[in-house]
């Protein structure tokens, strides 16, 4: 009788674990070392279902529609803030996250702007928005003293006219391009005032004829293949282009610079949706990611900086030692962050962006 009870109890436990022990993660594409996913399953015995997306807008639409079925999602700072306000996320249970002690205050003090007290999210990766150049081609067009680390390169029509023939791409993301143009004309890049934002329209319209394409991912290949000579893009993406060109050994030399006038710093944060089916497993996943070795493996693989101080001794020299990934203290001071636009301002921004791109 006792044996029977034990047996049935263990069956019940097994049944419970079979249904409860899984976690569904929704992360950016090409953003993790897949070996880590296998390691997570081996370490914890939790089944991991891993899906990817490629735009914050797509993720936000799923979050605001509700019932996404995901346990962990990875929005960027301003998107995270808006979704917290909408009630899309649950507060983290710190008692289940002992690895929180590994986090880096330089990053967590900045992410508090989006998530006060970091109550809802942990930092996964962060980076900057800057300028990628094909050094050979740009020097050919503008001479040896081309301002490759300055916004003058991409927002001064005189320079752009000379670069147009070799190809310039810009991000199709007004939330990145408008703060950059505001910085260039000496305004507050985080301005929420429609009248101030309107000042960048003539700036961007003046260089519009010389821009081949507005796109948020094609520039990686285009830079690496030498099809274009300048791209405004995200740090890790341009570094990927640099490494692809170096591997292909095709004579293309790419460099990335955060503009010396000041560049936007962004954060991708992991959070747990309010209606997550498996919040416990989600916490286990977050704690696993915050492990120093695991986080170091992830950064060594994707070439983005992370918000984990304990992982830094474990990073490869070409990651921690590269100022394009881990900027020095002076550059770090020069980086700025932005906050989300209110719906009315967002509409002005989207409308202006359409006008800049299409002329309508």
């Amino acid at each position: 009788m006792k044996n029977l009870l034990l047996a049935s109890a263990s069956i019940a436990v097994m049944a419970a674990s079979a249904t409860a022990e899984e976690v569904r993660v929704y992360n950016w594409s090409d953003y993790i070392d897949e070996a880590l996913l296998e390691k997570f399953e081996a370490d914890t015995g939790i089944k991991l279902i891993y899906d990817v997306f490629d735009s914050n807008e797509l993720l936000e639409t799923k979050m605001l529609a509700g019932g996404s079925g995901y346990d962990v999602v990875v929005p960027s700072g301003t998107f995270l803030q808006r979704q917290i306000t909408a009630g899309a996320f649950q507060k983290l249970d710190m008692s289940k996250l002992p690895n929180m002690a590994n986090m880096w205050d330089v990053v967590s003090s900045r992410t508090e702007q989006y998530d006060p007290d970091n109550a809802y999210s942990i930092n996964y990766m962060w980076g900057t928005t800057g300028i990628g150049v094909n050094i050979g081609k740009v020097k050919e067009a503008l001479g040896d003293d081309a301002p490759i680390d300055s916004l003058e390169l991409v927002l001064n029509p005189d320079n752009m006219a000379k670069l147009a023939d070799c190809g310039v791409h810009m991000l199709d993301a007004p939330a990145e391009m408008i703060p950059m143009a505001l910085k260039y004309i000496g305004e507050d890049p985080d301005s929420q005032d429609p009248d101030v934002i309107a000042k960048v329209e003539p700036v961007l319209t003046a260089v519009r004829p010389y821009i081949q394409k507005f796109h948020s991912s094609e520039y990686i290949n285009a830079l690496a293949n030498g099809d274009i000579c300048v791209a405004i893009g995200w740090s890790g993406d341009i570094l990927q282009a640099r490494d692809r060109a170096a591997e292909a050994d095709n004579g293309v030399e790419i460099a990335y610079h955060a503009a010396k006038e000041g560049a936007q710093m962004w954060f991708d944060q992991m959070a747990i949706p309010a209606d997550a089916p498996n919040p416990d497993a989600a916490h286990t996943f977050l704690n696993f990611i915050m492990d120093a070795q695991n986080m170091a493996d992830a950064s060594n693989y994707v070439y983005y900086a992370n918000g984990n101080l304990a992982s830094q001794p474990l990073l490869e020299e070409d990651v921690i030692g590269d100022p394009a990934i881990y900027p020095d203290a002076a550059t770090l001071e020069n980086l700025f962050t932005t906050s989300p636009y209110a719906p009315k301002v967002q509409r002005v921004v989207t409308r202006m962006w359409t006008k800049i791109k299409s002329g309508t």
Partner: protein
Amino acid sequence: MRRFALIAVPYLWLLALFLVPFLIVMKISLSDIALAIPPYTPKLDLTGGWDAVTSFFKALDFENFEFLTSDDLYWKAYLSSFKIALISTVLALLIGYPIAYSMARAAPEWRPTLLMLVILPFWTSFLIRVYAWMGILSNEGLLNQFLLWTGLISEPLTILNTNTAVYIGIVYTYLPFMILPIYSTLEKMDDSLLEAAEDLGCSRTSAFWLITVPLSKTGIIAGCFLVFIPTLGEFVIPSLLGGSQTLMIGKVLWEEFFNNRDWPVASAVAIILLLILIIPIILFQRNEQKQREMEG
């Protein structure tokens, strides 16, 4: 009773898959944007009883439709979509009719093979076929390489990311929808009518215009609708093959939904698109019915 049940099936289908979704979208288009899940207000709360329902209806208004008239972006996008859909439909008809005609005139043992060849592209995903056109039309693509090789051009043509690429993509994608209905009417046509026309001294060209074309009218109309309607709201082809100057309502709707997070305005754009499509269809059907009554 049995007849009633037979009619009820398609009507239930329309009710469940057309009218109910339409009313839901209509309801959202009358709401206001909100930072919540879901991102609009008010929400219908049936547990609140009659008071909740009346206050819900009081909160609805036509503000979003008024907003659409305040910015020239929207009517320009509708107009430009209309133009692109119209030109694409005419092009598809000009290319599709001769193909359908020669298929119907081919030896009967060949027809199943030819029909198969028209349907064959559907075996590959639509998205992959549009991506393939990116490879064909780009500056370093197959088309430019071929033209450079033949010496017809000395500089690569810029086709990708222009409206020309959008027309090529749409006509290519929707051509089978034009060919198939025209082919099916032409195939059923009674050849003795043409013989009679010849006996009465009608030339082959005028017999084609006086007999073949009018008899294939239903096929032409069905084909034109099948091409025009999906093209008007097309999103994938203009966003992959078109440039930033390509203005189409599908893209505007996407921006309202994803970039502005404004579901109410996005719904209003969708409702107007639907009305633009439905009104000509209803007028056309009325006209058909009248004609049939006059003939009958």
